[in-house]
């Protein structure tokens, strides 16, 4: 595990694919000194030294929007170049092979699928909305500093089901455990919203600016 301080002035691009409010991610980046740019331009994404891949919404529409602008290919290239990429919420979900939402084939950056929460108990509300503990099960530079009891903000009705245990770095309990932080090499993604998770979330974003893409 290595951790080197990279200039916060390097180009960070937030991928814009009509999937939710990206300005809240940009504002949180700004708060920790990262001047992130929002762009829907695939070439601009290729130029970036770091990419944030956020998103709120449905998997089907998100995939169509990515493909329309060639952003799916740009994302694959950025990852192949070894540049650090941070997925958030829907960004994480469409990184897997397939989503039950709209029965959609997705990017396939990580093996596994995304499933819908289904509970017998009526007191378990859907979506899973609010603050919940993120328990680190495998150290990762992006998760440095998280203490037992630290909670992050979640809003989602679908959850990731990774095929490989090695891709899971943190878990969260909602009736049963699900993967709340996943990654592989220079790709890292959270099911929760660091931009809405107060101090601990801001710290995670700050760590992204310094992460060298290894784990």
């Amino acid at each position, binding site marked *: 595990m290595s951790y080197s301080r990279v200039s916060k002035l390097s180009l960070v691009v937030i991928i814009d694919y009509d999937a939710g409010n990206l300005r809240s991610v940009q504002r949180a980046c700004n708060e920790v000194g990262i001047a992130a740019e929002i762009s829907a331009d695939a070439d601009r994404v290729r130029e970036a030294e770091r990419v944030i891949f956020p998103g709120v919404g449905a998997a089907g529409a998100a995939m169509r929007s990515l493909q329309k602008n060639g952003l799916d290919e740009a994302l694959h290239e950025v990852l192949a170049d070894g540049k650090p990429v941070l997925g958030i919420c829907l960004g994480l979900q469409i990184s897997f092979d397939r989503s039950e939402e709209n029965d959609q084939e997705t990017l396939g950056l990580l093996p596994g699928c995304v499933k819908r929460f289904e509970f017998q108990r009526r007191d378990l509300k859907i979506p899973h909305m609010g603050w919940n*503990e993120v328990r680190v099960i495998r150290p990762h530079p992006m998760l440095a500093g998280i203490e037992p009891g630290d909670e992050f903000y979640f809003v989602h009705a679908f959850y990731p089901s990774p095929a490989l245990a090695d891709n899971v770095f943190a878990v969260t309990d909602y009736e049963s455990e699900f993967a709340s932080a996943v990654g592989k090499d220079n790709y890292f993604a959270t099911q929760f919203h660091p931009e809405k998770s107060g101090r601990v979330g801001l710290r995670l974003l700050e760590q992204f600016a310094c992460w060298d893409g290894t784990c």
Partner: protein
Amino acid sequence: MLSKRLIACLDVRDGKLAKSVKFVDTKDIGDPVEKARAYYLDGLDELVFYDITASSDKRNIMLDVVEAVAEQVFIPLSVGGGVRSVADATDLRLAGAEKINVNSAAVRRPALIAECAEAVGNQNIVLSMDIRRVTPTSELPSGYEVVIEGGRRPMGMDALAWALEGERLGAGELVINSIDADGTRDGYELDLTALLAEAVRVPVIASGGAGKPEHLYDALTTGKADAALVASMVHYGDYTVSELKRYLDGRGVKMRMSW
């Protein structure tokens, strides 16, 4: 395990913080941006801004307030008051609101819920309901009636039926605001909150009547609410956000205790 949420509601009129008692006689009590930042730093889980500006030409002031808060507060922001169209909802989202509350306009035209849910996502549409207690009748079998215009106009709609309809149309969360309890500080209307919380699958926020920490405990246990909304209790400095959370945590309610 998911934590229960403590939410503070800031009523904003002409860009200033106001607090109403039974929805009338509002008075200014400070700068909303400053209050929001202080609550955030003290561990608040979520913020709601309610625009009670009377004239519609002052809406831009509210967008400025939301934008200023969104730059300093990194927890979910929910905004409501006078949302009548998808354009209102998307303007507020761009200004930095996570969740959009719809109320009176949705009662008058329920399709607004579905339209907004389509535009900004179900999980970001909150149906805020103002409700008063009535004698049960065949039209109002639950004994609770939906009211609008800040509580002044009864609509002849059953609150339970409206909650279920709101959920069906795509609301991702409900705020249950008791007009009878609002501003009294005598406690939430627990029967109402529990009735609706058990009927729907989406999270429910108890609102109206909080005056003491035990009222919050009751709403989150007996009242079956997922979140408790406070206003005067914290605005006037009687209690702090962290103090309320420590109290609830001490009584065994799962709360976020590190921030």
